[in-house]
């Protein structure tokens, strides 16, 4: 497909999903009402709904989708394996365990007051610990089997830690409910606090990633040849691992575990527009944001109260199985 059309098409999709996120919900608003509410007009209820509830939710969703899409692209280039992604490798689980640890242990340790910053911080620490373990378990260029198996093991291990915390807090209904929120991911009741916590750092990390696309192209074709062609591979690897882990951790901190975005989005875009990371990075940020908002819309319009992480997994799981079956 013509890559010239990619940015306009993805931007249009994103704008559509974003506007729909502001319009749809229990209170159905027209696009006119949304626009006037955004500009400070319209009736009080519509204004409150749009500006205090839906706008922060949509902004968080946009940032989370962009973060997961970008970190998926980075991990695939880093491991030179198109099946690598933050969820499958266990980095998301690490971030969730960190967040859950703060939620579960915070009240006991009296850090509840600091929770707003403790949460993303713990998530970042947990995600970095998981990334460190992935790096030990699966060397770069590791075969698909080794990479995925170490992800299975790590996800099981971190999941066990999370389950343990879940059972120790079984008596505290509220804490338990919060933990479940992280495990199934979601954008409910995301406030402006979450926007300030997540959106600026995610945007910053995305901006820092964009100039690395060219070097990532070379890295994805082998570390030694990249080095011989003039890429400072050691430095690039550090940049990539730090930025992708931070992105995954921040996304997890504000929205819980939302799986498969980092796998599905880069894959589809790579099939459509080719593997050039200079383009794939921005495309995956836009595409990830649009995809996440669309999935969130499904959770809101579906009557059974589906969770966001459940929707992305329902889409991503079969897609992943299809990828595995596909001859490479």
């Amino acid at each position: 497909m013509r890559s010239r059309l990619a940015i306009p098409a993805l931007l249009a999709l994103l704008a559509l999903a974003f506007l729909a996120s502001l319009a749809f919900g229990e209170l159905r608003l027209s696009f006119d009402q949304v626009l006037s509410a955004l500009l400070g007009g319209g009736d009080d209820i519509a204004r409150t709904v749009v500006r205090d509830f839906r706008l922060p939710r949509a902004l968080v969703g946009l940032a989370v989708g962009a973060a997961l899409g970008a970190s998926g692209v980075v991990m695939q280039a880093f491991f030179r394996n198109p099946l690598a992604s933050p969820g499958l490798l266990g980095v998301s689980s690490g971030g969730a365990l960190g967040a859950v640890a703060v939620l579960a242990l915070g009240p006991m340790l009296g850090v509840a007051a600091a929770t707003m910053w403790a949460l993303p911080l713990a998530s970042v620490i947990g995600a970095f610990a998981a990334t460190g373990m992935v790096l030990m378990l699966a060397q770069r260029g590791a075969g698909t089997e080794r990479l995925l198996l170490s992800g299975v093991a790590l996800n099981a291990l971190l999941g066990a830690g999370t389950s343990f915390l879940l059972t120790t807090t079984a008596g505290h209904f509220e804490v338990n409910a919060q933990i479940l929120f992280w495990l199934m991911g979601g954008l409910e009741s995301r406030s402006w606090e979450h926007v300030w916590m997540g959106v600026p750092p995610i945007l910053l990390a995305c901006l820092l990633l964009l100039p690395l696309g060219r070097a990532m192209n070379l890295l994805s074709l082998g570390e030694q040849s990249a080095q011989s062609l003039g890429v400072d591979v050691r430095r690039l690897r550090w940049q990539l691992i730090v930025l992708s882990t931070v992105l995954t951790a921040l996304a997890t901190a504000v929205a819980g575990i939302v799986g498969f975005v980092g796998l599905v989005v880069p894959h589809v875009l790579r099939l459509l527009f080719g593997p050039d990371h200079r383009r794939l990075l921005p495309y995956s940020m836009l595409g990830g944001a649009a995809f996440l908002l669309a999935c969130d819309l499904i959770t809101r319009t579906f009557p059974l109260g589906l969770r966001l992480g459940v929707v992305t997994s329902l889409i991503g799981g079969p897609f992943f199985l299809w990828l595995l079956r596909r001859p490479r």
Partner: protein
Amino acid sequence: MSSALHATDVAVSGRLEAVSLELGPGELVAVVGPNGAGKSTLIQALAGLLPARGSVHWNGQLLSRIAVAERGRRLAWVGQEALFEFAFPVREVVAQGRYAWGDDPAGVEEALATLDLVHLADRPVTRLSGGERHRAGLARALATGAPIQLWDEPVAQLDVRHALEVMRLARQLADGGGTVLVSLHDLRAAYRFDRVLVLDQGRLVGNGRPHEVLTAPLIRRVFRVEATFVESLVPELPKD
């Protein structure tokens, strides 16, 4: 003679033992040796792609003092395996050779033509055969315009004609003042080089003109085969 590449006691534990050598500009040099003799290790160490003891100088400058991007302009390396997991078009793979030049596209089309890849330029590199991928790797090295070229078994997977063309290219680069080091298994091909390095179990056991180094006793000792010097079929590129 000013040296383009100068190695002093280069060693990699378990693989290479204190190898010292000097390659000059305009030299076409072959490195031969049995499997596991350390050919690839030596080439990677000279290219600065492997932590090694000892010292390597490029044009009199200590390798560790040369910035990574500058290295990409001065030396090109082609590995034994062409790893291509992502479906970049061949032209893009070749253009990656220009990374260290800020992606200035000079020489990319010529490199494609030289390695007979023009008709494959828009094809995803993952759909090429092993030999074609190898030619893409060589074209990328050529596109760097680097005066020092290190090629690890560049012709092992190529058909007769393309192998001869690659050998002719190596000769042309050397004639143009470049330094070309090529690892090979074909001892008859090595005979046409200016100089031959023989590696055996990580040690440099031969370094000199082919007819002086590749003698029957050395071949027997290193490769454990008998060599007889007879006339035989010799494929050549047409003279046109």
